[in-house]
């Protein structure tokens, strides 16, 4: 396997971009990431997108975006609900690692606000089991709420145990100019928020919005030309049953555990070597179950990591340092690429007010649906 390096990165601000199309957002991110690189060197474009055919009524996004960018190369759209962008990154990684390509671009893009909220909820629910869950009215938020309700029951916790995840995300979002919500909240405000899908309240639910992020991946051949190369030292994905009722253990994210373990094994790293982490955290329960699946907390104890400040910027395992889903904004299938753009900024010391000192190794894990797909990447400052 050849080594894979991240060169250029860029993302748009996450907003309700009513005046901009999916293509506008995609091209802004592509221009930013590619920069002065000769476009003729690009051998493939991998587009991570979850909702384009439903909400933007456009399929074949690979060719659609490549054509608009002036690229005549392999162009593929990758779909795995919220994990689409991360899975597109994995396809780009494999293209370089296998020696098939020396330069590829990975784009995550989502345009969520062309339709009203009920239609957006319907589109997001496509990541559930169509016949067993979506048909009876379950929403993606409702599915996570089922997990949270059971978690609270099994571990005898109050819902407020999850507040520190959102408080942490908002504290970090305040320092990210690309974030959708740039303000802090506190536990009291969290506790007073109205219910969305009991026991999930409004401040425990991310807002789905528009955005695009892109990264350029290169082989060793081009890595020497990069000012601060970042290596992808681990890349792994796994899957489990989409339908919650068909999982042997509702509160164990099996795919998240498998992909995390495999990525760490590939990187030859222990989990405590990770300096900074990004997870799928649209709700506190998602972050908690991911932390448990990755082995950072015993089952039923992940909320303690948040309560004790372990996930804060000055903690041992900073989480969501650009605001996570809750404050940066939930960019659907683009999220996996946003996570990597944000972590690369940290590893290059370019994260501004949210910079974590001496961050050398980072882990990004992105889930599709309620964790039916999980993709994990481990990034490290490289010396070439």
């Amino acid at each position, binding site marked *: 396997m050849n080594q894979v390096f991240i060169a250029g990165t860029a993302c748009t601000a996450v907003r309700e971009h009513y005046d901009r199309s999916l293509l506008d957002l995609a091209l802004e991110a592509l221009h930013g990431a590619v920069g002065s690189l000769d476009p003729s060197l690009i051998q493939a474009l991998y587009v991570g997108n979850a909702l384009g055919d439903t909400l933007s009524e456009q399929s074949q996004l690979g060719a659609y975006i490549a054509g608009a960018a002036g690229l005549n190369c392999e162009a593929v759209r990758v779909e795995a609900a919220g994990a689409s962008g991360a899975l597109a990154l994995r396809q780009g990684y494999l293209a370089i690692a296998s020696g098939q390509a020396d330069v590829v671009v990975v784009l995550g893009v989502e345009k969520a606000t062309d339709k009203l909220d009920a239609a957006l909820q319907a589109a997001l629910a496509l990541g559930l089991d169509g016949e067993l869950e979506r048909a*009876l009215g*379950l929403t993606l938020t409702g599915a996570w709420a089922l997990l949270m309700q059971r978690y609270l*029951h099994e571990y005898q916790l109050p819902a407020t145990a999850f507040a520190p995840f959102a408080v942490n995300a908002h504290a970090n979002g305040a320092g990210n100019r690309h974030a959708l919500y740039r303000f802090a909240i506190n536990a009291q405000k969290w506790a007073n928020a109205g219910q969305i*899908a009991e026991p999930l309240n409004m401040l425990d639910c991310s807002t789905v919005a528009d955005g695009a992020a892109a990264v350029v991946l290169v082989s060793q051949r081009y890595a020497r030309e990069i000012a601060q190369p970042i290596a992808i030292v681990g890349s792994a994905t796994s899957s489990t049953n989409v339908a919650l009722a*068909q999982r042997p253990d509702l509160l164990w994210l099996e795919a998240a555990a498998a992909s995390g373990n495999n990525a760490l094994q590939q990187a030859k790293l222990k989990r405590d070597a990770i300096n900074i982490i990004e997870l799928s955290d649209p709700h506190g329960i998602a972050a908690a179950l991911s932390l448990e699946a990755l082995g950072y907390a015993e089952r039923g104890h992940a909320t303690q990591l948040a309560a004790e400040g372990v996930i804060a910027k000055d903690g041992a395992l900073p989480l969501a340092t650009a605001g996570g889903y809750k404050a940066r904004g939930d960019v659907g299938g683009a999220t996996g690429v946003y996570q990597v753009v944000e972590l690369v900024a940290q590893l290059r010391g370019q994260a501004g007010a949210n910079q974590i000192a001496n961050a050398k190794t980072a882990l990004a894990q992105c889930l599709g649906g309620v964790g039916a797909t999980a993709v994990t990447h481990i990034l490290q400052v490289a010396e070439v």
Partner: protein
Amino acid sequence: MNLPKQWRLKGQRYRLEGQRHSDGRVRFPAQPAKLGEASDAWQPYQLANTGELYSWTAQRSNRNEFDHEPIVLVGMIKLADGCMITAQLTDCEPSELQIGMAMEAVTRSWGKVGDDDLLVYGYKFRPKLAD
């Protein structure tokens, strides 16, 4: 309009048709054999129609087909035969729901489909009525 799909699903939705393995395991809905399984390892089986509430939620932000309902109650029910099923809950308020409470299946309207407003029926669960 997806009439063929609604027709195809009538067994699982009207009669809770699942499958039982020769070793006693039960699954829902009926499905083809997994890779490595004998094609006759699973036989048709009608699920138990009672069980316990395993988890639940009260959705207040719903997708378009359900947007007319202020709250959609959804639960997971662990049936008496061990099978887990996700279903809408009916004939109850959120304040009545407790994990572990006894539930029973009923057949109710799931809503309308397509331009002709085809009425689709299927299983829902409610708190078990006293014997």
